[in-house]
């Protein structure tokens, strides 16, 4: 996996040069610039309602609240700077998301590495053994991951490679359709399917390891 976000350079959004002097009278300036005020109001009305989706994505991607806040802030500042480029009537949520994704990649450029080859035999063997004794899916879920903490699942999600994590978050947390996800990441639906499948498989492996290490499940190899 890539470096942990917390070890990467912290983002800080700096004001542009010379802004301090000009910031002294923003309210009066605003009063005399109705066109710009309209633009700002329009931007806020369109973009701010999507803050929750973006914040959740930032939080699940960076893994900590400080970095999530910085990433969110940078996203909105960039969105405002490029507001003239936004095509009205198109999917603003997808547009904002792409800005956030690019900001994240630029700031936390991870050394991308192919995920480790996953050996599923152990999981399948264990699964076969508990499946025979289980009544239904809820029972299986409880036996496998019932005692895992939210933090552990969040860490497993965070440890996924970027491309896989993105589609898992958008699908399983945000509840977006494959079509919407394809629009968000600007890739064909086939790519969404494939990434989701691989992402969930990797996640299974990680959750299984967490559960094994915590003694929630015991395999024949024993812990």
């Amino acid at each position, binding site marked *: 996996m890539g470096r942990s976000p917390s070890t990467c350079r912290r983002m800080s959004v700096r004001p542009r040069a010379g802004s301090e002097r000009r910031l002294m009278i923003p309210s009066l300036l605003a009063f005399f610039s109705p066109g710009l005020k309209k633009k700002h109001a329009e931007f806020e009305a369109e973009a701010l309602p999507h803050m929750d989706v973006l914040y959740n994505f930032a939080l699940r991607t960076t893994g900590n609240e400080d970095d999530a806040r910085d990433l969110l802030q940078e996203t909105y500042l960039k969105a405002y700077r490029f507001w003239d480029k936004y095509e009205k009537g198109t999917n603003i949520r997808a547009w904002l998301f792409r800005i956030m994704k690019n900001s994240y990649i630029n700031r936390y450029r991870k050394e991308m590495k192919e995920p480790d080859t996953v050996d599923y035999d152990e999981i399948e063997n264990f699964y076969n053994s508990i499946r025979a004794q289980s009544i239904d899916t809820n029972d299986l879920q409880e036996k496998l991951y019932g005692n895992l903490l939210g933090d552990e699942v969040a860490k497993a999600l965070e440890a996924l490679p970027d491309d896989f994590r993105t589609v898992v978050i958008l699908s399983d947390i945000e509840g977006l359709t494959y079509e919407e996800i394809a629009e968000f990441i600007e890739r064909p639906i086939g790519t969404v399917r494939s990434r989701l499948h691989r992402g*969930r498989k990797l996640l299974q492996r990680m959750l299984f390891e967490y559960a094994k290490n915590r003694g929630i499940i015991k395999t024949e190899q024993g812990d």
Partner: protein
Amino acid sequence: MDLTCSDIQVYLGDAIDRTLPKQIESAFQAHLRGCRACRNSYELEQLAKYAVQSKIRRMSTPPQVYTSVLSALRSEYALSFPSGEKWWNWSINRRTTLPALAGGIALVVFALFFRGPQNRVEQLTAHTAANDLINQTYRNFLRVRSGELKPSLTSCFPESIQAYFLQQDTRFAVNILPLPNSDWYGAIANEYGKVKLAHVVYKLGDEWLYVSQVHESAALSGEELSLPPAAKEALETSGWYTDPLHPECSVVVWKVNGTLCTAVSTMKKERLLAMLTTQ
């Protein structure tokens, strides 16, 4: 139709997310019944999805993060306005206008302040009823300050707040004070019984101002909401009422354009009144 194990891998996600085409569904299920490896693969992937959905809580943006984003945007907005020199050149041509305007405002503040609702504190002022407008506004004010109640919309611009209330069809004029020192404005619309209410939050540095608004008739003659008799009398005669029962904050009620506004603020009463009367 027969599906191979490779086909199953392709359709696995659709099956889990319930977007599998109808014509494939029965073939997919038939294959799973006869193939343990594919069935395991399907069920394990399904469990991974359930683990994410059941263990990871979707969060609302914390108020302090919302505020920091708005502050950053506000600084950014300032950069897009004309430069300071241009503005100064513009304003210097009006050097007589601005002092005159300031003097006029000061005069109005002075006049209105001293004809405000005084000597009424000894009248009946109690207001603990659950439907008491002052009581409700005060409680909401505390909840907003503590972060328990979050505005439905937050913006740096009063116009955005105004637009929000237009969408809510409040059926009375919602008054937004364009306070230049406000860091942000917040908006909430709700109904109490059948009465529509609009609430505007102003964050001015360390100070808070919460103003709830309702149609004048609903507050003064309706049955859903109530006000202390002293408040009704003061509003009838002067249009203003200052509440004496909350020494830790300032409470002012006034009528404007057929709307009754109730303000609760951390600001001192004199400052609050001066601010309200100049708007």
